[in-house]
């Protein structure tokens, strides 16, 4: 068959289709990012060709968040001689090829943070508005993934332009079109008609992936239990191990906290107001005139986890933990947010 290029269409494609989709994104002026296998993990890099893509999800180091919320950005520049302010917000054309469902959920959480309130953030919006997503469903769970517990995976059924699920035989993928743009990316592509069996395979694989998850966390009533467990001795136990290095928060796809500061060049001609990632885990985060709100490591650690598993629900009605497992992988002290959640609620 040949794809018409409409939202709602489905078909079975081979890996060669990826090249075509990537090429079309690039033709349309998008810088396309995907996970490339490097040093034993998947790292989001600009893609040359689809061949570079690694299909196995390994979590990677930084989440693709940096594409729509960069680690550091200039908000405006100020000419110290003329006193003129310049803030040019340029729309950015980026696309992600192979983003996973958990990261899509994290993106949706950030959308609420940056765009949902009274003051939509123009810098975020400029990167977010035109952001095609080619999503890979996860047919295998990583060791530390608990998306199925958090309701953010392993499959996705909304907010994608294209959705790709690997079927049983290697090199066969179920392709689902989720938007007009997604359609354009696959119009006229040669493909096999997707049969019922293919859907069955998809669902079975996703169910298996969820069932085989090695990390789990029961979320029923979790915020209340976390609040009640604020004084649980386990906090002391893990904060004795915790380095306070903030690795966990730095790899979290939903952390959004920031510093805003002024940077002036050496010749004092120009000041740039910048925003850069910051985290409640840093000592400097809670510092105020005459003290620090979270001087103790235990308070910083608890803020991080409480925010993810409790406070975010009060703030946004959803967990700001999407179960991606990155903070677990990269914690040099082996501290595990899912384990913590289980312990506090008494499941572990």
């Amino acid at each position, binding site marked *: 068959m040949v794809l018409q290029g409409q939202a709602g269409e489905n078909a079975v494609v081979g890996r060669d289709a990826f090249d075509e989709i990537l090429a079309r994104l690039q033709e349309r002026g998008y810088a396309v990012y995907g996970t490339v296998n490097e040093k*034993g993990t998947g790292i989001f890099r600009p893609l040359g060709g689809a061949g570079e893509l690694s299909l196995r999800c390994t979590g990677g180091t930084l989440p693709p968040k940096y594409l729509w919320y960069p680690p550091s950005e200039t908000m405006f520049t100020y000419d110290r001689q003329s006193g003129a302010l310049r803030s040019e917000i340029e729309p950015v054309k980026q696309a992600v090829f192979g983003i996973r469902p958990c990261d899509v959920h994290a993106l949706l959480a950030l959308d609420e943070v940056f765009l949902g309130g009274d003051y939509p953030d123009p810098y975020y919006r400029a990167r977010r508005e035109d952001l095609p997503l080619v999503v890979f469903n996860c047919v295998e769970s990583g060791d530390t993934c608990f998306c199925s517990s958090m309701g953010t995976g392993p499959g996705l059924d909304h907010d994608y332009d294209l959705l790709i699920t690997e079927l049983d035989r290697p090199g066969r993928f179920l392709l689902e079109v989720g938007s007009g743009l997604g359609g354009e990316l696959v119009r006229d592509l040669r493909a096999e008609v997707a049969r019922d069996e293919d859907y069955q395979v998809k669902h079975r694989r996703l169910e298996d992936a969820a069932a085989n998850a090695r990390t789990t966390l029961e979320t029923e009533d979790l915020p209340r239990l976390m609040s009640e467990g604020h004084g649980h001795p386990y906090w002391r136990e893990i904060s004795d191990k915790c380095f*306070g*290095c903030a*690795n966990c928060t730095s790899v979290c796809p939903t952390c959004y906290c920031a510093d805003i500061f002024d940077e002036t060049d*050496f010749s004092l001609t120009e000041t740039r107001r910048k925003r850069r990632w910051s985290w409640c885990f840093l*000592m400097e985060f809670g510092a105020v005139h005459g003290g620090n709100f979270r001087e103790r490591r235990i308070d910083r650690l608890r803020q991080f986890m409480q925010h993810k598993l409790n406070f975010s629900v009060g703030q946004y009605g959803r967990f700001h933990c999407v179960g991606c497992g990155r903070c677990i992988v990269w914690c040099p*002290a082996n501290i595990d947010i899912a384990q913590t959640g289980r312990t506090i609620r008494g499941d572990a």
Partner: protein
Amino acid sequence: MTDRAEKPRLAVFKFTSCSGCQLPFLNMETEILDLAESIEVAYFAMAGASQPGPYDLAFVEGGISCQEDARRIRKVREESRILVAIGNCAVYGGPQALRNFLPLEELKRAVYPQPELIHCFPTCQGIADYVSVDGFLNGCPVDHGHLQDYIVSVMLGKAPEVSTRSVCLECKMKENVCLIVAEGVACMGVLTGSGCGALCPSFDRGCYGCFGPSADPNLKSFANLCRELGLTEEEIHRKFRYIVNNAEAFREEAERHVPQPVES
């Protein structure tokens, strides 16, 4: 600030050190010449400036290890409005503070044919042990970006801020794969203040802590980690007693582990 007389007067002093923390000024290449337009480089022996004080902003490299150092740092303090310790030596005493943990007379004999001619203190200490200090910039050597930020802050009239992030975060921003997690290397980045840009881990080597302890280092947990990774007590001791050996946190943690045998 057009009138020359109104330019803030900058000074750079050297005490017991390797000169490596003065070099970042000279390595600022073209910026150093721009700098000279907005600031008067009043004292900087290595760059040929030797005007007398007072100075508005004095950067001090080097630790205090003898009577003459102690006398001179007091004079520098008197003459300087803002006094900043730059680098491991001025902040903590430097690599040469390793001698603080060894018997001086033995050291003298090990190095000099006529040890009786040697006059110095038994220790090399950071300058804050002798005078009050307004700012500290860590590193071995200090980072030139930190120096620039400091100077700019002073010129703009704001209190300079020194970040309390860990080396880990610099690693993450570079998308390095964590050496502790992936390779079982006892990398000290988790305890070490940022500033270097995670140099060592970016070059496949564990951080050895040259920017000194971070804001709230969990030394005990790190020692446990080292043990899990198979390091002996003696090796753990030497990890803390290395380039930055005289920072309180590292010094004390070293003492908690068996000291190295000194054979002679």
